[in-house]
């Protein structure tokens, strides 16, 4: 079996919130014990609602937030702890595409500078080579090389996201974290960017972590899917398993919540979640989802469910994982 490109083991990222005067210090467990692999060439869909910890997880993988507990291994090397590789080396392995192409590009840098700077910083000094690689990358993402001297404001949202993708790929990383890459774009532009990301993945042999709350997009692009709720993974498995045979009530609620015009009553109203997501500062005891869960029983309040196998490669953290079907 192929060595995983990314492996997270019991990863936790906690934040201390508040101060001694105002009610004491609380711990916000943004990510709380996540174990996860991404294999080379694989696309892992990471699904969850705001506050579930998916963006914190991404920042930890990027090496931008130190883990409180657990380990992150990228390409066989541990990136946290004493023998962590430097950021420059990390940047050549893991890159990120951000949600908002209006906020994530430097407005005072031309496309050429945005793409050439990382190359120079990483030791590509030959001018002709820098030029060639910038031109090649622009062509790959569907921009014309003569647009290289323009500034971000001269481009549309979709084109800006193409620049963001080019910037992420210019150093030939192995793993790209895509954090809601299409949700800030016009609906008629989204298909262009999704198609582009999938083409580039095949051409360049990339691995993706696709963070999204849009289940239609996740189903379309993912090989495997992990669902997060209040800092924990509640279900993970192959895309088909997750979408056709979801075992966690939260996954079912997410699927039921999609306003899907094509099969309106596919999943019954019974699957819908009640109420709202609890605060991550004060998550409900036991299974974090129990206050909203249609299957709630006493055991859900008293015991944390473990993420256990329900089928080959498919795991769910629910006391009633065998009953949900």
């Amino acid at each position, binding site marked *: 079996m192929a060595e995983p490109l990314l492996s997270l083991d019991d990863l936790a990222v906690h934040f201390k919130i508040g101060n001694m005067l105002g009610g004491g210090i609380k711990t916000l467990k943004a990510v709380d014990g996540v174990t996860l692999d991404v294999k080379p060439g694989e696309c892992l869909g990471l699904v969850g609602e705001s506050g579930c910890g998916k963006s914190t997880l991404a920042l930890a993988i990027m090496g931008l937030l130190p883990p409180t507990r657990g380990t992150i291994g990228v390409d066989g090397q541990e990136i946290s702890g004493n023998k962590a590789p430097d950021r420059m080396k990390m940047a050549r392995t893991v890159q990120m595409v951000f949600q908002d192409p209006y906020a994530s590009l430097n407005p005072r840098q031309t496309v050429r500078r945005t793409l050439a700077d990382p190359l120079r910083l990483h030791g590509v000094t030959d001018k002709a080579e820098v030029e060639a690689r910038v031109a090649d990358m622009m062509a790959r993402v569907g921009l014309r090389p003569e647009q290289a001297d323009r500034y971000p404001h001269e481009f549309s949202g979709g084109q800006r996201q193409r620049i963001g993708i080019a910037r992420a790929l210019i150093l030939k990383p192995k793993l790209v974290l895509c954090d809601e890459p299409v949700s800030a774009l*016009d609906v008629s532009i989204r298909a262009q960017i999704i198609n582009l990301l999938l083409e580039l993945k095949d051409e360049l042999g990339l691995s993706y972590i696709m963070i999204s709350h849009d289940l239609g997009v996740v189903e379309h692009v993912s090989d495997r899917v992990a669902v997060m709720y209040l800092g924990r993974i509640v279900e993970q498995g192959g895309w088909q398993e997750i979408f056709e045979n979801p075992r966690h009530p939260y996954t079912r609620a997410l699927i039921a919540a*999609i306003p899907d*015009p094509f099969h309106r009553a596919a999943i019954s109203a019974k699957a819908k979640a009640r109420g709202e997501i609890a605060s991550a500062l004060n998550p409900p005891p036991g299974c974090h989802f129990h206050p909203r869960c249609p299957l709630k029983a006493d055991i859900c309040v008293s015991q944390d469910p473990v993420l256990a196998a329900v089928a080959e490669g498919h795991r769910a953290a629910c006391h009633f994982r065998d009953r949900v079907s």
Partner: protein
Amino acid sequence: MTVPLLKVDNLRIALAGDGATYNAVENVSFEIGRGEAFGLVGESGCGKSITALAVMGLLRRPLSLGGGRIALDGEEIQDASPAEMRRLRGKRIAMIFQEPMTALNPLSPVGKQIAEMFVLHEGMGWNEAMDRAEEALRQVRVPSPERRIKDYPHQLSGGMRQRVMIAIALACGPDLLVADEPTTALDVTVQAEIIDLMAELCAAKGTAILMISHDLGLVANMCKRVAVMYAGRIVESQAAEAIFATPSHPYTRGLVDSLPRLGERSKRGRQRLREISGVVPSIAAYPAGCRFNPRCPSVTDVCREMVPEATPLPAEGLVRCHHHG
């Protein structure tokens, strides 16, 4: 023939800028019956939100009503004085906005903001109005309304704030509720609850809905009829089911085809998403003829020269395309 609750006829909205005046919206006509849910769908900049503002009499410079008629219950309101409009707004037509945090007054407890509606429009005293406000909060299923009534908007979650907005909007039992992207700022499982709540309360009170959204799926689930706007014009309107089953305008067809459909990958494997080429034109550079023509797969010379007339479709639908039929 019965008089429709809202009749918008040949609406034109002018945008003044840079020494020129543009038509941000033109030739927009639609009708909404009593108690009917009607959806207006389009991408950012297509003019759907300002159409809603025009109905509310809330257009402000640089936008102004350029022409056309808006009739509520047979009575034309486009030339109503500000004082007359203030009497209508909140009483007979009410609006909820995308971001409840910016639409609510941050310095006033939510109970008072609801009670104000009864004081202003029904001449109630504050004591009685506060009791009614508590009842209104209970109706939108805010837990423990007797305590929540004293909360300020920042003390509530996004979903709770939107419930408060709905309570304010429906307080005086309006004939028409204008909802401009009411759930875009919310998480998907919360969105599902809010939509259900809105639909249920409006059905109970016989309130008609004008739903504005970029999300075709959401609108089609909630509304009976849907109109699709592109670059300031309605390009197609049909019954909600028909818009997905038989989209008639190339733009609508493109939108429907470009959405990754849930369950599609299981059935047919991963198909490349159909893209709509190009970008949405800017208002200063709307193309002549059909405004979709630079992006249209079936464009011909006539599309570049002539504005297409409306062709009727079954069930009072219409499409504006030279190549229909």
